[in-house]
């Protein structure tokens, strides 16, 4: 039931996406299958330094992170001829994605003048009155003015600041240049606040290095707190010392400086003391990830590169449609073989496997389609192959389950009991093994980049779908089937025939009935010559052993003049033996 609702909801979401948005009814394909847009970028340095291969690879790293952050689309980023960067994005990427690639990040430090909640301020400040916008003065103060002076907030800037709505996603995209010499209004990157900022004081390129780590206390003890450390070059250090000296004397919010990346404030720490040596430590309520992200962003900003777009062209798929068609054909053949095998192995029960696999396929298709619409997920040929392989892993859950049920039947349980008991055991195994798979998927997704990330996503997805199917479809169906007479009484074609599973003799079938195994079926199933210790030792019952011991004791008493102790001893020994075995 739950599953039905889920599937209906899934496809309703897709249908809705197609009708009212730009969703599609089929998954979008990746670069290798669909082709895409290829952009050739030439990096140029903003300072006079040379473009080296290490700056190129750093730039590739940055672009890859930016593209990866926009979804799970597998972009291909290569260097070409030692001084160009080629970025290939699948399909027709949106303008925003293209901008992400084309633009160079500009990191700048500005002092904070005002800050407020992200929503627009309803009424303008009393001073500005009801005057209309064009008349607002926009003359910045004279060049020498203190950067923290509120005079940087010109009436025009004030109006902008009042109108700014940082809860709108369109205001959180960032990008576009900003004039370093005048004030700026900007949103916090997460949309939690808006700021009015003074002119740029330090350029991001003055940062030599930024890293995240655990705070080291004054006595050298590592504490539990995550911090970001950054180092400035000599010019930056001097600048930073002047700035912090001034800011430390001011009150909040003017004692804060904002790190502005692509017109968005990524962090706005307050200054508590003068930092003369250019080594700053930013502390606050960081987690490991948020500290690492900030350090990364600071490093991005430190890269003195801008990109010029050389060309932007459509590229066709590297693999022909032939590969995809043949791949799907191969998958189909494989699926037919799997169906055939499970029918031979599990008879009618094989249909449960087939139905479960079919459902898993439908859900996978739906989820991938939905994700390619909402998350930009794209299916590459390795992804298709991964999905075909997932048939094996999904089918394994059923096999584990069915085998456990058969094991319980062999122990002489009725089918209903066997399904119950077998499920509780199989569930543990299925959960444990799928947990391992999911762990692999999560770790690889979080830590890896590019194609590996796409693979991890597919793996995690199929694992979850597998669990969903087993819990909400296969097991309930089994419980229902167990109640039918066809399966419950073990029809030979049901795949759960107790006689074929080697249940010997009479079996209690419930409601006062017993089932007898017919002898002709049991020709190979004769009770085995049990030679285990259990069979061998109790060849003599306790009574027999006691008797033997007593006789031995009597003989001993007759022979020698042994006491009562020996008479009691043998009985003692046998009873211990009994307990142990």
């Amino acid at each position, binding site marked *: 039931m739950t599953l039905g609702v889920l599937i209906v909801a899934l496809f309703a979401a897709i249908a809705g996406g197609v009708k009212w948005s730009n969703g599609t009814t089929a998954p979008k394909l990746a670069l290798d299958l669909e082709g895409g847009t290829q952009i050739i970028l030439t990096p140029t340095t903003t300072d006079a330094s040379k473009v080296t291969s290490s700056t190129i690879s750093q730039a590739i790293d940055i672009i890859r992170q930016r593209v990866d952050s926009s979804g799970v689309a597998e972009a291909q980023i290569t260097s070409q001829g*030692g001084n160009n960067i080629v970025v290939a994005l699948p399909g027709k990427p949106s303008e925003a994605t293209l901008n992400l690639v084309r633009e160079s990040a500009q990191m700048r430090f500005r002092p904070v003048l005002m800050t407020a909640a992200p929503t627009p301020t309803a009424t303008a400040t009393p001073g500005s009155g009801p005057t209309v916008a064009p008349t607002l003065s926009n003359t910045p103060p004279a060049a020498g003015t203190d950067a923290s002076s509120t005079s940087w907030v010109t009436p025009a800037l004030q109006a902008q600041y009042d109108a700014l709505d940082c809860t709108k996603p369109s205001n959180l995209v960032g990008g576009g240049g900003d004039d370093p010499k005048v004030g700026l209004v900007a949103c916090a990157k997460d949309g939690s606040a808006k700021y009015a900022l003074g002119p740029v004081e330090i350029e991001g390129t003055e940062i030599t290095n930024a890293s995240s780590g655990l705070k080291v206390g004054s006595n050298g003890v590592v504490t539990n707190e995550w911090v970001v450390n950054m180092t400035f070059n000599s010019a930056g250090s001097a600048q930073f010392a002047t700035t912090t000296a001034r800011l430390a004397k001011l009150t909040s919010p003017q004692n804060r400086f904002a790190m502005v990346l692509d017109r968005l404030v990524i962090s706005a720490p307050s200054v508590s003391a003068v930092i003369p040596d250019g080594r700053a430590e930013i502390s606050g309520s960081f987690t490991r990830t948020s500290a690492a992200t900030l350090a990364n962003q600071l490093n991005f900003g430190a890269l003195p590169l801008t990109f010029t777009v050389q060309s932007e062209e459509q590229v066709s798929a590297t693999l022909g449609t032939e590969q995809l068609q043949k791949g799907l054909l191969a998958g189909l053949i494989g699926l037919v073989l799997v169906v055939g095998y499970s029918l031979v192995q599990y008879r009618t029960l094989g249909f449960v496997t087939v139905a479960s696999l079919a459902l898993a396929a439908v859900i996978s298709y739906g989820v991938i389609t939905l994700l390619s619409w909402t998350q930009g997920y794209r299916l590459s040929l390795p992804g298709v192959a991964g999905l075909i392989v997932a*048939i094996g892993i999904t089918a394994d859950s059923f096999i584990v389950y069915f085998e456990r049920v058969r094991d319980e039947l062999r122990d002489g349980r009725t089918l209903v009991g066997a399904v119950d008991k077998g499920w509780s055991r199989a569930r543990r*195994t299925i959960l444990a093994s799928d947990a391992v*798979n999911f762990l692999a998927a999560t770790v*690889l997704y979080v*830590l890896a980049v590019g194609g590996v990330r796409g693979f991890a996503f597919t793996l995690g997805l199929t694992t979850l779908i597998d669990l969903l199917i087993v819990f909400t479809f296969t097991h309930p169906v089994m419980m229902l089937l167990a109640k039918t007479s066809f399966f419950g009484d073990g029809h030979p074609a049901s795949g759960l025939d107790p006689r074929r599973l*080697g249940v010997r003799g009479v079996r209690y079938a419930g409601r006062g009935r017993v089932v007898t195994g017919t002898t002709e079926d049991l020709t190979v199933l004769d009770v085995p010559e049990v030679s285990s210790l*259990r069979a061998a030792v109790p060849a003599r019952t306790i009574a027999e052993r006691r008797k033997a011991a007593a006789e031995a004791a009597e003989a001993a008493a007759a022979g020698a003049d042994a006491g009562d102790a020996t008479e009691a001893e043998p009985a003692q020994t046998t009873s211990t033996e009994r307990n142990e075995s």
Partner: protein
Amino acid sequence: MAVGFAQWGNDLYTGRRSYGIVGRRKIWFTIAALLVTVSAVLLVVPGLNPGIDFRGGSEFTISGVSTSNRQAAVTAVASIDPKEVPQVSAVGTSSIRVQTSNLANTQVEQVRLALADAYKVSKDSVASSFVGPSWGQDVSNKAIRGIVVFLILVTVVMALYFRAWRMAVAALVALGHDLIVTVGLYAGIGWEVTPATVIGFLTILGYSIYDTVVVFDKVRENTQGVLEQSRFTYAEQANLAVNQTLVRSINTTVVALLPVGSILFIGAFILGAGTLRDIALALFVGLVVGAFSSIFLATPLEVALRMREPAIAAHDAKVLAARAAASEELGVDVSVPSHAVQLLPGGHLGNQAQPRRRKQGRR
């Protein structure tokens, strides 16, 4: 066949038929060691053959072409170097991009001429340049970091779940074996390593652990409370577990291999080199090796490790001593229980076996 297989499954479950998989562990260890050694040698000579995505290569851009036929480019490149499989794609409306992975400098010029010839353009319209790897060092480094973190986490998770670090160690050894053998065989066949291959290897990484966990879960179940009884040793109970999951292992492996096999077949014989063939080969080898290691390597190794545990060793000695004593007492050799290791469950013996109703009036 199915009847025989089901019967075989029954016998394995009840222990009527049992393979001494754990007992003969020296053989399996030798085979595994041999496989790993051969694969390690294959990894050095001839070694892996990384494709264009890993080490870059040559790129030819043919501009001003009238057709977008890709086969012409493939044929042209093959005429110079038959082993080379170029990636061909159309760029814009009138250019074609051809990427090759390992051409010598002299060959680059030849390929240029061949391509110009194939597309009937002048030699000057074919530009060649070097392209860097799209799967660069940093991608590999991050993937490796991810794998290492995964391995550490999975070891901790398994050690906690099974409450036995030895199981985690055995699973890791089996995993290492699977990966080395799979990668080694791939190197031996000499196909180019593409991102698809790497993804195949990663799948094996997950599958190998998955498969081992399933078998170990049965071992854990069978050996629960093994110290509280004195009938069977730990090794015997573990061996029973392997035998009991044998049917599952075979069924799962077959079901997983069927689709992969069909991709491999179609990929290798109909399509020729390409993504499908690469990933299918990596998976096919990995699945077979993974099935082998989960049965023949992981559990025997776990038992071998366990038997060093003082409690288990003492228990083994106790069981064997009790058996020897019983053999002596009974005059029957029960020191090696050949089969029927499984306890036979009691069953209903029919209404005839029920106590009769007492005669009336005899209260």
